[in-house]
């Protein structure tokens, strides 16, 4: 299990190192309103002002949405248990940089009065989305894999305790065939969950932003989809493992008795 945790931590380092998160906010162009003629100037300025106001509102909505999502991620990363403090600190720094860049960009956009400048800033939002749309699932997948490892450890601990109780029940004369089968399945499910969690991290942590390359966009999407499937398989295995634990707990409460019949065959009630 420790080996797995180490592998998980190493794989996650790729996630931390991969994305370039700094937002390129360009500051400089002064505000100017271009008019074409005296008679139409007032109407065009008003129309432009309305468009600019609307564009700023939409830009703010998107930036606020991303900042909220990133802040949630900070909280989730902070609660990860199976990665090193260094990993958490690095990931946290990257996310905070992203938040800082978005906040700075929002301030700039809110102050924009020139359409050309605003268009450039809105484009920055779209360009930064390439990083955001990869960073969020990568980190969330890593956090989910981290929790899966936590659960595997916990259930292994419970399995050891249940094994001892099953042995004691057998010594007391109970038939523990079904309980041992459930315990064996518990081990199988935990192994499956562990392998799938590792696969999810391996498949997603090393991805890089597509930089506008359509092929990379497609391959990233495919890799994230596979990682999602792996995480779901691990999740399902843990649910089955929990059911095995419940079966054993119930069996220990009401142990089946070994009965000898007149024909001397052993039957289980």
């Amino acid at each position, binding site marked *: 299990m420790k080996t797995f945790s180490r592998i998980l931590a190493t794989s996650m380092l790729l996630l931390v190192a991969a994305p370039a998160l700094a937002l390129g906010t360009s500051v400089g162009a002064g505000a100017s309103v271009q008019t074409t003629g005296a008679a139409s100037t007032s109407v065009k300025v008003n129309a432009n002002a309305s*468009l600019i106001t*609307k*564009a700023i509102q*939409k*830009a703010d*909505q*998107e930036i606020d*949405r991303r900042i909220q999502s990133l802040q949630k991620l900070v909280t*989730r990363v902070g609660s990860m*248990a199976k990665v090193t403090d260094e990993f958490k600190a690095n990931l946290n720094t990257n996310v905070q940089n992203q938040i800082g860049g978005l906040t700075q960009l929002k301030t700039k956009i809110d102050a924009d009065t020139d359409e050309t400048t*605003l*268009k450039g800033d*809105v*484009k920055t*939002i*779209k360009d930064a*989305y390439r990083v955001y*749309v990869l960073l*969020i*699932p990568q980190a*969330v*997948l890593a*956090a*989910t894999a981290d*929790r*899966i490892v*936590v*659960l595997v*450890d*916990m*259930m*292994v*601990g*419970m399995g*050891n*305790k*249940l094994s*001892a*109780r099953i042995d004691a029940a057998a010594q007391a004369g109970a038939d523990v065939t079904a309980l041992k089968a459930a315990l064996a399945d518990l081990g199988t499910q935990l192994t499956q969950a562990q392998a799938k969690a590792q696969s999810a991290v391996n498949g997603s942590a090393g991805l890089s932003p597509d930089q506008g390359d359509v092929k990379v966009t497609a391959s990233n999407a495919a890799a*994230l*989809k596979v990682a*999602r499937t792996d*995480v*779901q398989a691990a*999740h399902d295995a*843990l*649910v089955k493992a*929990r059911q095995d*634990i*419940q079966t054993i*707990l119930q069996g220990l409460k009401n142990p089946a008795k070994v009965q000898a019949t007149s024909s001397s065959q052993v039957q289980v009630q």
Partner: protein
Amino acid sequence: MKWIIGIIVIAAVGAGLWYSGVLTPLLSMGSPTATTTVQTTTAAPSSSGLPTSDADSSDDALVKDAAAVDAQIEGLNQDSASVDQSLNDKPVEQSY
């Protein structure tokens, strides 16, 4: 002359308080000899992350352990939902 009288008054009040025992609890707080050693028995920590000791396989311990596992599974449900949400992210459509 006044400050000498002031010092004498303060010293007298202090001596009175000390003699009456009012200051005793305060003075003893910083004294190592005044502390009492409280021996506590703590369960061995669980290496598996369970709330109870790894060696404790009692019914009570198993109930607590199962509850802790269920809480983590609930957290996993939320994580899975977050993964889906992140993969289906839709940005706000921009004007430009």
